[in-house]
């Protein structure tokens, strides 16, 4: 372990908080919301890898691989949804999609 675990965790929490800021503030653009989710998942991967390096166990790396696989599935589905919604309403603003309410 080259740096203390707390520094890795601080970097990871900074990344997570920036992703959360992106997700909450960009409600007008679905693509930017997805980017925020990507940043948050990367912060989780960084925390897992830091823990794996600290304790010398492989579980953290295994779970980061699973997170990467899960993210690729999630992004492909989410972008297909974005294309579908854009085809229906010509918009990527999340406030436009209130079909259940109407």
């Amino acid at each position, binding site marked *: 372990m080259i740096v203390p675990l707390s520094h890795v965790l601080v970097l990871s929490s900074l990344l997570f*908080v920036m992703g959360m800021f992106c997700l909450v503030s960009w409600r007008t653009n679905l693509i930017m919301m997805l980017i925020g989710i990507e940043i948050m998942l990367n912060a989780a991967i960084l925390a897992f890898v830091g823990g794996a390096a600290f304790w*010398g166990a492989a579980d953290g790396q295994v779970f980061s691989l699973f997170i990467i696989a899960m993210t690729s599935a999630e992004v492909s589905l989410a972008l297909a949804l974005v294309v579908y919604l854009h085809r229906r309403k010509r918009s990527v603003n999340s406030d436009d999609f209130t079909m259940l309410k109407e």
Partner: protein
Amino acid sequence: MEQGIFYILAAVVVIATFFSVREKHPVHAIIYLATSFFALAVIFYLLAAPLVAAFEVIIYAGAIMVLFLFVIMMLDLGRPEKAMLPGKRDRGIALLLSAVTLAAVITLAVHRSVSMPAAPPMRIHDFAAFLFSRYGFAVEVVSMQLLFALVGALYLGRRR
């Protein structure tokens, strides 16, 4: 020396992510994010996880970011003048939530400093044996999940 590289890369990651979050133009945001992912991949390599670093470059910076770029260009979303910017109220709420979360997590991370003897780094051979013996069932589940995502994306994307 490795410590210095870690801190430089951490600065690159934080600055690139900050610009990508603040960027109005989605394509520029994606490029900043790819920069951040490359630096993060080198950080993973420094933290004794070369396999995760390789997957980060191949899947995140290679596949996912290109998929985002593809969708932005296909739907013609790269027009910042047409896009609605986040309102002041949204941004204020987001800043408040972020500040509270950051303060909580950093307080926890700094005060609960666990001290353990340095563990020897894992080799890729051990990692692969561990992955396919202990988590073999989870690997199968992940492959099914990718198949379902493929079928779902095909269903959503068909023309009717």
